[in-house]
Structure formats: structure tokens, C-alpha cells
């Protein structure tokens, strides 16, 4: 059995966790920039801007 140890973490794997996971702090005490919505919206914008340039690699599964 071999365990592949990957030291270089892929950015997408990181973003799955850092933008969708982790404790979300909200409230007046923050600058409101830790707010989940802001980050989500920005990631969505990022992904859709990438998607817009490239058609899906494979047709719809059904």
C-alpha cells in the first residue's frame, strides 16, 4: 500500500475549505467583511467568469 503524500495543496481544494468551511463570524463588531455572503458572492463571480469562457467538458449527465 502506498500513501501518496501531496505537499502541494491544490488551490481548489483549499478554496473549498477556506471559502465554504471555517467558522463564520458575523456581527457588528466585525467590519462585516468576514461576512459569508460577501465571500461566497465573490467566489461565485470568480467561478462563473471562468465558466463563461469554457463550455462544460461533458454534456449533461442525463
Amino acid at each position: 500500500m502506498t500513501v501518496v503524500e501531496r505537499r502541494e495543496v491544490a488551490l481548489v481544494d483549499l478554496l473549498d475549505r477556506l471559502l465554504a468551511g471555517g467558522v463564520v463570524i458575523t456581527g457588528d463588531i466585525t467590519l462585516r467583511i468576514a461576512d459569508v455572503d460577501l465571500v461566497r458572492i465573490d467566489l461565485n463571480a470568480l467561478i462563473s467568469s471562468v465558466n463563461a469562457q469554457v463550455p462544460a467538458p461533458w454534456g449533461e449527465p442525463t
Partner: protein
Amino acid sequence: MTAQGGLRYVYAVCRPFAAALQAQLTGVAGAPPGLLRHRGLVAVVSTVPEGDFAAEPLRGHLEDLDWLAATARAHQGVIDALTTVTTPLPLRLATVFRDDSGVRTMMEAREADFLRALDRLDGRVEWGVKLYVDPPEQASAPAGRPASGRDYLRQRRMRTHAQEEQWRAAEEFARILHQRLSERAEDSRLHPPQNAMLSGVSGQNLLNAAYLVPRADSEEFVELVDRTKDEAPHMRVELTGPWAAYSFTEPAVEPMPAPATEPAQPAEAGEQR
């Protein structure tokens, strides 16, 4: 630490720990992370420039993939260093406060949540498992040009059929794999499948899951993943981790109890009090 024209970036909250962080560790924006203790908790923080991390500039930066990548990697670097000395409760990327007193106020307000989460995650790590399906091979398959329109349509139908079959088999394998791994994990989360353009990885990502596993059981879990790797043709299983428990900072949502309006089964005969 005093705020000198800087904001406070918070990476994680931990229980106090004795070991020192690596001396040369740098965080987001290049500053070394420090510890801010408040009551029974420690926040891991560093100073970031207001010019980049105040709401407006941050909004712009987050759409810049290079900036986002550098920031995410720096954040992860600090979390990684923490996992070698404790079990951190990681915060979401770009959690920023005006000053230390803002961080303390937040810690006090969320103290009970944090302690509960830290207890739940203590000694656990997260493993990421992704399943990819290879792109269909027949793109290059038809050896010659179809002889007629009817041949063309027939070939196309066969291709479509083969694709559907392959897809169905892959979905079934994903379901079984997830079930099998969930049985060996304390908890699991499904992330949306990754976009091939962002990941730069070939094949279609069908399963993108995270599993919460006690450190002590990790070797066994990794072996289990490894054994599945050769089980299915045209599919690829990828393991990442161990991660800090990013995907498990919120407790699992309990399945809803039977709705009150429907007096379903009488509660099991002996629900004794």
C-alpha cells in the same frame, strides 16, 4: 500587539497550548502570527494593512485569483503550523477585525460555541476524497468516417448509450464509496463537485467529500481509500489531507424529528424519563 494602522486578521481559535509556533512562520500579508489570549481561549492573529483588508479593497482583491491564492495559502500555512501543536478551530478566510479589542469581544460572544466545537473536533482531522470519471474515450474512436448518414446516427447513438452507461456506473460507485467511507468517519460533508477549469484536473469530478476522522484512526482510513482505488475502471480516487477540520466547524444538522402535526409512530414504547 497594538493596532498601528493595521487590522487584525484572525486565523483560528484554539485552547491555550504550550508549544511555540515556528519562529519563521509568516501569515497573510507577510506578518508573523501571534497569540491573543482571552479567558480560556487563544485567537491566532496577525496584523494586515487596512489598505488591503478593509471592506472595499478586500472586495476587489477577492476577485483577483492570484491575490486570493496567495492569501489562502498563507492562511493555510498558519493553520497547518497550528495543527502540529494543537487542534485549531479554523475561521473562514478573511475574518478581519478593527483591533484586538474587537477580537476579544467576538471571542467572548462566541465562547460557548467555540468551546463546544473545540471539544467536538479535538484530536480529529479532515480527509478529502474526490472521485473523478475519465472523459469518454470514444472521441477518437470511430476509425473511419461514417459511410452514410444512417451510420453516423447509429454511431452517435452507441456513443451516447456508452456514455450514459459509464455515467450511471460512476454515480453508483460514488454512492457506494461515500457510504463506505462515512461508516469509518465520525462525520462527513459533501462539497460541490469541482470545476475542471479551476482544478486543471482531467475527468469529471463526481464526488468531492470531506470526512472527519480521529487522528488515531487515520492510517486505517487512508488504507481504506487506497484499497478502493483500483476497484472501478475509468475512475480515479484522490485523497487529500490531513486537513484541519475546516469542513466541520459547524455541527452536523440533525435530521428533523417527525413534524409535530403528524403524530407519527408512537415514540418507542419505552422512552423513559
